[in-house]
């Protein structure tokens, strides 16, 4: 009955072993059951678009750790959206994109298409499971449908743990196919927009404005990511993604003004034209830090660039802290800044040769956006919680190029203010 003779110090190794036993379970392993989030989001742009968006997001976590997620979103948009035409000191009359009816923009105002109205429904499902103790696979399908747009996609990823589960490597792939079927057909690129439907040009001319009924686009995404546990309180993530899309990128509802080269007044309106492909790349870095008192700080930064010459930076910070046992507050600040696409232009000048591509869509222009607000949450029990979120968005655009004539009197890229309000209820059972 010889007892072991080697009584070395083992506390260090034992602490490491205990740490990996307890950490994984306490943090990473979720309790099996159903997790259901329901939310309604309201989005209001001053004088422009209003959106109401109910969301249901249900996740089932099985006893073996596998996860099934189903999400349904209904998006209802109404209101007015800039049509791309530039501001004038005269009244401007436009045809609706559908070719039916028109609208009038008063002098000195940014032309907005006030018939913007759509309902989008989106359904997605994703299943994630462990192939073995270190490898997780996931696969998903997504479907989205609105009046003139349909999208279907699938995605798949593999995550593998290394280094005692402190490092996770993620490889992801996604494919999406979109079809757009605008009412009235696809406009001819750089085709002239009719001003007085039914009264002006003959129907043969009208026919020539449209070149087909629908157009397609496919998007392929690849992602490589590393998540690293820095210590018990800190987690860091670094992703690189590459996205390549082919097909129809033009917005069939957006136009460009052709302005007089000296007065700056609009002479004609042309449908816009964008390249048939786009390659985007981005680097995303995120850190999550849990403070000793249980508060959580989330910081992230994204750098995105594409072959349209758009370059953007996004900085996002959230800080969750408890006010009482049940009540918590999560302030949020996000700053976005973007450099314009190479072919972005507020308007075209008469007499100039048409460029290969051009768009006056403000989303392709140079602008900064600041989002700020807070979420207030109340834990009803350890299984359910209600929260509301109120955020404000300020967007400031830069005028690109040199304004001509009357354009000097106006802000060609007016500010956009929006309010976001969300009400959510989450429950686990």
């Amino acid at each position: 009955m010889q007892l072991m003779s080697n009584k070395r110090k083992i506390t260090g190794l034992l602490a490491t072993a205990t740490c990996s036993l307890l950490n994984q379970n306490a943090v990473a392993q979720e309790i099996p059951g159903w997790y259901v989030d329901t939310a309604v989001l309201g989005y209001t742009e001053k004088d422009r678009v209003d959106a109401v968006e109910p969301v249901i997001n249900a996740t089932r976590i099985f006893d073996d750790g596998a996860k099934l997620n189903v999400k349904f979103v209904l998006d209802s948009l109404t209101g007015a959206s800039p049509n791309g035409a530039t501001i004038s000191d005269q009244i401007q009359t436009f045809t609706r994109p559908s070719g039916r009816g028109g609208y009038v923009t008063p002098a000195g105002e940014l032309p907005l298409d006030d018939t913007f109205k759509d309902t989008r429904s989106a359904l997605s499902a994703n299943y994630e499971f462990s192939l073995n103790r270190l490898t997780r696979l996931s696969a998903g399908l997504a479907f989205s449908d609105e009046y003139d747009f349909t999208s279907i996609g699938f995605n798949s990823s593999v995550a593998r743990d290394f280094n005692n589960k402190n490092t996770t490597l993620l490889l992801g792939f996604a494919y999406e196919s979109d079809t757009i079927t605008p009412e009235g057909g696809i406009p001819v690129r750089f085709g002239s927009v009719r001003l007085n439907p039914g009264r002006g040009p003959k129907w043969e001319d009208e026919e020539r404005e449209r070149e087909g009924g629908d157009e397609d686009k496919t998007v392929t995404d690849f992602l490589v990511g590393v998540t690293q546990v820095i210590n018990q309180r800190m987690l860091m993530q670094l992703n690189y993604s590459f996205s390549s899309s082919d097909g129809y990128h033009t917005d069939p509802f957006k136009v460009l003004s052709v302005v007089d080269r000296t007065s700056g007044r609009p002479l004609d309106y042309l449908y816009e034209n964008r390249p048939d492909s786009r390659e985007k790349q981005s680097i995303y870095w995120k850190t999550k830090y849990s403070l000793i008192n249980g508060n959580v700080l989330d910081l992230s930064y994204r750098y995105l660039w594409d072959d349209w010459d758009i370059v953007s930076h996004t900085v996002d910070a959230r800080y969750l802290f408890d006010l009482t046992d049940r009540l918590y507050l999560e302030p949020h600040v996000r700053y976005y800044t973007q450099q314009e696409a190479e072919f972005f232009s507020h308007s075209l000048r008469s007499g100039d040769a048409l460029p290969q591509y051009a768009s006056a869509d403000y989303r392709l222009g140079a602008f900064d956006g600041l989002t700020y607000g807070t979420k207030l949450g109340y834990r009803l029990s350890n299984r359910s919680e209600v929260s509301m979120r109120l955020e404000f968005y300020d967007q400031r655009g830069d005028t690109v190029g040199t304004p001509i004539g009357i354009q000097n009197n106006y802000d060609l890229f007016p500010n956009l203010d929006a309010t976001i309000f969300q009400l959510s209820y989450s429950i686990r059972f």
Partner: protein
Amino acid sequence: MSEAIQRPTRLVRKGTLWVGQFEAMASPCEILMSLDAREVAEELLQLAASEAWRVEQKYSRYRDDGIVPRINHSNGQPVSVDPETAQLLDFAWQCYTLSEGLFDITSGILRKAWSFQAGAAVPNAEDIAALMPLIGLDKAHWQSPDLTLPAGMQIDFGGIGKEYAVDRTLAQLQQRADVPLLVNFGGDIACNRCPDPEQPWRIGIEAPSRQGEALEMVAVQSGALATSGSSYRYLLSEGRRYGHVLNPRTGWPVEEPPLSVTVAASTCTEAGMLATFAMLHGRDAEVFLEKQEVRYWLVR
């Protein structure tokens, strides 16, 4: 899966604390919570009880549908285990290595030869020798998540389960409400922080010979305590005392184990392992503990 365990729970107010009580893993369990809202205390108590019962149910040797009986009846075939069990097996493997075979989750089969019930006899050497080929975690093949246990061998998580449940419960409660908490499952204890630095948690370590009487009051700000004891069960034969702490490397009781060892560490699992290892070192328990540079209380 069989019906989840449901037993009564009790919540009482003691001074500025809520005290929740229930039974799990054959032990009285207690949660001390420094907070005011009764409904939060009740919720934490339910959370603690369900976690303790979940671990008890999942790792019981006696529930036919559990993972442990499935492994023990696998008859030499590989069994694929869930992630939580895989982590426990990883941990058990590391403890086996660290203790150089003294802590072994396959040693439970010695119960076939050794009984410490009143009137039981000391087994003969042949019976013990016959069991020895079935002991030794190194005889199993563990390639996570697949465990292949040679036919006839058995494992159990009895030596880890309770301390593990204490740590997990504390982590879950703390995630739900970040208030001063103490979790005590039958003397295995972990706490996050004390209600007031001036007033640390005071934990009495029981004197093994006089049940219920505190041997020493220990002040704890945060961290864990676990106790391993050989106190009440032993056989006497021809003037020789045979304790119930068995050495898996010999199949015989450890010689001169302390009556009780309590160790303080940052987690209950760690404290429990150190106390168990110390017990298995028998007469050298103090030497082992001194080497570990931990706070401990030992009774001979």
